[in-house]
């Protein structure tokens, strides 16, 4: 029998958005080639640093303001995905990775090219890659199921019928605004949760995985590599930050779930999987092997 400590858990966040596509126009004057920055009309709060967006020209023209070096195929296209950094004036820089976008350095931004004519575009927030929430110190996830009373006349005991499932919870993390903790991919900063709570146009939706157990990192594949986690979509209902001189700055966020709540597991099989096809298979087993054969009935 084992006792697990919180050190086995972590939270993985996936950015999400309720916003529909936004259409706008990139004018020649909106593109600043030397600063690798461009802009289009959008409301404050629609885009955040680190968001992955899809830009698509609505008239089928190439997105000529992005240099060919900024495309995977090294040629202009009419649509593409990038990570963005938004400055305080609404200027946008494009990046090829999340951590570069959050850092926001001009030198790492995608190179832009000046354009001669307007390019009508539509912008959609994509955000499909989950990231570990940096410096998370605590999380809690509660699930509850409503029960409907179906007791009828003549019954001696109350009868209940299971109804809807809902979830809620909260997490806490040390506040930071740049990802400094990386394990598998670049980490999500806790500041994003504060931004989530006050987003007006695109909502406060996010996807998350709450790991009860993560695999070991020593490379051996045993049952200690099993992973067990809750997977949810949630909406941040409350976020706060405490700030005092004698303690580390910590944020907390409450959320409710929306949609299904899944408790998933990825287990490592205890035995090797044998290929099953029409070929002849020669079995060789010594005393220490653990090859299992199924009886033919």
């Amino acid at each position, binding site marked *: 029998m084992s006792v697990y400590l919180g050190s086995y858990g972590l939270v993985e966040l996936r950015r999400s958005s309720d916003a529909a596509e936004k259409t706008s126009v990139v004018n020649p004057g909106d593109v600043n080639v030397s600063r690798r920055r461009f802009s289009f009309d959008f409301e404050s709060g629609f885009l955040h640093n680190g968001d992955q967006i899809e830009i698509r020209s609505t008239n089928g023209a190439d997105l000529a303001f992005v240099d060919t070096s900024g495309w995977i195929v090294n040629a202009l296209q009419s649509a593409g995905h990038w990570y963005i950094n938004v400055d305080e004036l609404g200027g946008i820089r494009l990046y090829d990775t999340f951590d570069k976008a959050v850092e926001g350095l001009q030198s790492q931004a995608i190179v832009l090219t000046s354009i001669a004519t307007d390019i009508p575009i539509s912008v959609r927030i994509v955000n499909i890659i989950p990231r570990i929430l940096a410096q998370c110190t605590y999380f809690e996830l509660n699930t509850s199921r409503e029960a409907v009373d179906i007791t*009828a006349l003549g019954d001696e005991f109350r009868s209940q019928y299971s109804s809807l499932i809902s979830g809620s919870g909260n997490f806490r993390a040390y506040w930071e605004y740049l990802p400094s903790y990386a394990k598998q991919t670049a980490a999500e900063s806790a500041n994003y949760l504060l931004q989530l709570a006050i987003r007006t146009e695109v909502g406060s939706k996010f996807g998350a995985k709450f790991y009860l157990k993560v695999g070991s990192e020593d490379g051996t594949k045993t049952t200690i590599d099993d992973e067990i986690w809750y997977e949810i979509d949630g909406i941040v209902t409350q976020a706060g930050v405490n700030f005092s001189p004698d303690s580390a700055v910590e944020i907390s966020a409450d959320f409710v779930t929306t949609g299904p709540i899944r408790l998933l597991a990825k287990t490592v099989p205890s035995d090797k999987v044998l290929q099953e096809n029409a070929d002849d298979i020669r079995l060789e087993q010594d005393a220490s092997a653990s090859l299992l054969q199924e009886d033919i009935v």
Partner: protein
Amino acid sequence: MAKVYTGRDGRLLLGSNILVKVTSWTLQADLETLECTTLGDSQRNYVPGVQSFSGSAALLYYVDSDNTNDASTLLQKLVRTSGVTTSDTVSLTLRLTNGGTNNDVTLTAYITSASIGASVGEVVSAQISFQGTGALTTANL
């Protein structure tokens, strides 16, 4: 022996069949009073007029293991494509039982209103109202 009656003792029968998943029933008995006060009287006087009986019941929309749906049976007396005729009466018995002793009110009635709805997080139930016609068949409350 003292006895307090509760919902555990309640039953609703359609004919001789006990309906399942009934969550409530009510019975309203009324008597019209005809005034016969005359000049010189100091108090109003009445003589009894016509009695009437009505009530309501609520049932879960529930399919039993034998595929019967009691709520549906009652709903179909009113929710139907053809008109209601005099043959569409039902015999309802409103019962309070105490072991082997039943306190029944049985009446012949028309279903006069029926409602059913579905809402998130709740079970589907039907509410019916009925209007008795004729005298009570049994009355030993």
